[in-house]
């Protein structure tokens, strides 16, 4: 067991999956000799060869489409889209094909593929390199949408995603790639793809987050503890299918919640979670459901990025607003 970063955990899981299942392939732009622009596929070419680690031409729609063809033929492609800002040309293939081949053919042809992509801002990246489009994917029936926020969860959930019989969009929060280290046992154990992770128990409020916002939620919980507020923290981790039970149960206990998302507010996945709570947990709520989100503006270029990104302070402030209720 070694202390590794989230990006190293991704690499570890890819290597493990390729080791244990010859059907697993890695493909994408610069995944070979370069090892991916973030080094997620570092060393895989040397270890598994050019027939299992494929540098594709620069064509995202085709990367998704190729993966569909491979998956239909029984391979387990794990494709990388270099940044989520470039994933949009692949959406057509995801909506119209990957997510519905099983249903269209009554199970005759299936599509066990993973589309990985670094996601989110906070690393002072150029234009189009800081997108958080997870809500778009979470709206597509037949797709799983997973966003790990720790090395261990990245390892276990990526393994589970690769082993899953259906297509998974796997978004990796860029800003957490090297943000911290954790002991990760390379034991091949997958983590469930239909479960939220309760990272911290609490009694006064529930902070709900995913991806890059999980770290902020944890920091907010620390800050709140200083103010005497006990905050539960939930990493949603799998947006689709959503584990509403865990969320509803926690908010049922605390009566308050803050949902944090980095994406622009309107139409984001925080809305879905708020709606679930408003449907199922309404009667236990003591305060309005707070959402802390990016603004409904294009994320600014790096110089003002910090003004855009939701952070621990905004989450804590929202939680305190909610505490003001009964």
């Amino acid at each position, binding site marked *: 067991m070694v202390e590794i970063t989230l990006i190293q955990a991704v690499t570890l899981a890819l290597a493990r999956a390729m080791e244990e299942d010859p059907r697993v*392939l890695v493909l994408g732009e610069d995944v070979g000799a370069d090892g991916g622009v973030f080094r997620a596929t570092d060393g895989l070419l040397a270890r598994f060869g050019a*027939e299992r680690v494929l540098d*594709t*031409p620069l*064509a995202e*729609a*085709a990367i*998704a*489409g*190729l*993966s*569909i*063809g*491979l*998956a*239909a*033929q*029984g*391979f387990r*492609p794990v494709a990388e889209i270099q940044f989520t800002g470039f994933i949009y*040309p692949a959406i*057509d*293939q995801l909506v*119209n*094909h990957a997510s519905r*081949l*099983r*249903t*269209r*053919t*009554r*199970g*005759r*042809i*299936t599509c066990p593929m993973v589309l990985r992509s670094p996601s989110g801002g906070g690393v002072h990246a150029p234009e189009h390199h800081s997108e958080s489009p997870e809500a778009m994917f979470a709206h597509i*029936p*037949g797709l*799983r949408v997973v966003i790990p926020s720790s090395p261990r969860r990245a390892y276990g959930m990526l393994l589970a995603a690769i082993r*899953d*019989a*259906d297509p998974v969009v796997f978004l990796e929060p860029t800003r957490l790639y090297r943000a911290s280290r954790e002991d990760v046992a390379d034991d091949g154990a997958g983590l469930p793809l*239909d479960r939220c992770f309760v990272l911290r128990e609490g009694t006064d409020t529930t902070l709900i987050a995913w991806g890059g916002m999980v770290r902020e939620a944890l920091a907010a919980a620390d800050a709140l503890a200083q103010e005497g507020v006990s905050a539960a923290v939930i990493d949603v981790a799998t947006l*689709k*299918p*959503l*584990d*509403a*039970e865990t969320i509803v149960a926690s908010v049922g206990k605390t009566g308050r919640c803050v949902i944090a998302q980095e994406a622009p507010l309107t139409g984001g996945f925080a809305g879905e979670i708020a709606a679930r709570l408003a449907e199922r947990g309404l009667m236990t709520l003591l305060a309005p459901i707070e959402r802390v989100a990016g603004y409904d503006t294009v994320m600014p270029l790096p110089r003002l990025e910090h003004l855009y990104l939701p952070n621990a302070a905004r989450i804590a402030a929202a939680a305190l607003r909610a505490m003001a209720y009964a």
Partner: protein
Amino acid sequence: MAHFDIGYRRCLAPDGRPLEALPDLAHDAETLIGLYRAMVRTRTFDAKAVALQRTGRLGTFASSLGQEAVPVGIASAMCAEDVLLPSYREHGAQLWRGVTPLELFLYWGGDERGSDFSGPRQDFPCCVPVGSHAPHAAGVALAFKLRRERRVAVAIFGDGATSKGDVAEALNIAGVWQLPAVFVVTNNQWAISVPRRRQSAAETLAQKAVAAGIPGEQVDGNDVIAVRQAAAAALERARTGGGASLIEAVTYRLADHTTADDASRYRDDAEVSRHWPEEPLIRLRAYLAKIGRWTKDDEERLLAATAAEIDAAASAYLATEPQPPESMFDYTFARLPTDLSGQRAQALAPVPATGPEPMTAR
């Protein structure tokens, strides 16, 4: 400096007269009769489907009238273990490969079971989003190549599809990775109302191959012998490691785009009439008659047998009960997620639902 040539292949003149040196295939009457039967079967299926649609018993349908030589010529050159990735107008190829008329009726009647082919289990279902299956063909071909199987992925799409980025991306990848794939453009001169010349300034659509560095060839798409020859050559090349290629089969859409279309809005009847004499059945029938292998009797027997088969399939289709409501849920994922099981239960509860509306729109 680089130079490129795009060839053109044709074996029979529209009146069935053989041109130049005929390939061996043209002397294999049994095979030709098989091709002829398949084209008649396709046309019979098309006619029945249109009739069912017109009487409100089938959904919007895309007929392949006049284009039968393309799907039949291509499919007949394929091996069973190859994989076909059709668009929505390749019933001829699907039928040849063992998709049943009942399955096709089900599909066009709005029932997913129609894509659960009992025959070619690995063939892709119809692809409606134009050209979007081209990258799948590259993926399937890549699977074959990686497994060192001597199999070929064959994608068929229209002249309109050649304008889509997906097709260019797929051709390029198939080229650079030398994939065992054959891409077929059925150039039927129209993409709904947009004529071929307004789809692209390229003199031929076969030359889309040049951009991908793969061979491209034009063939008379109403000449099933030529289509099959071109397909056989491309398949053989792909199967033996020679990589991908593109075939443009030049034909003509004699029917409306679909049953929801009214082609008289954008093209003259006269243009359609001009193309009738070139349609593929006349041509092969005339040649077969010329070489003494097809009689009026043969024709009548074939038409009767084919009509009987297709009518029986239509009856079976009409007698097929719809799928149960839970079928909406049960193929979304391999295992129903908890989050969906609640919705499933809700859908199965005796909630008030309006009945199905009559089938009308496109």
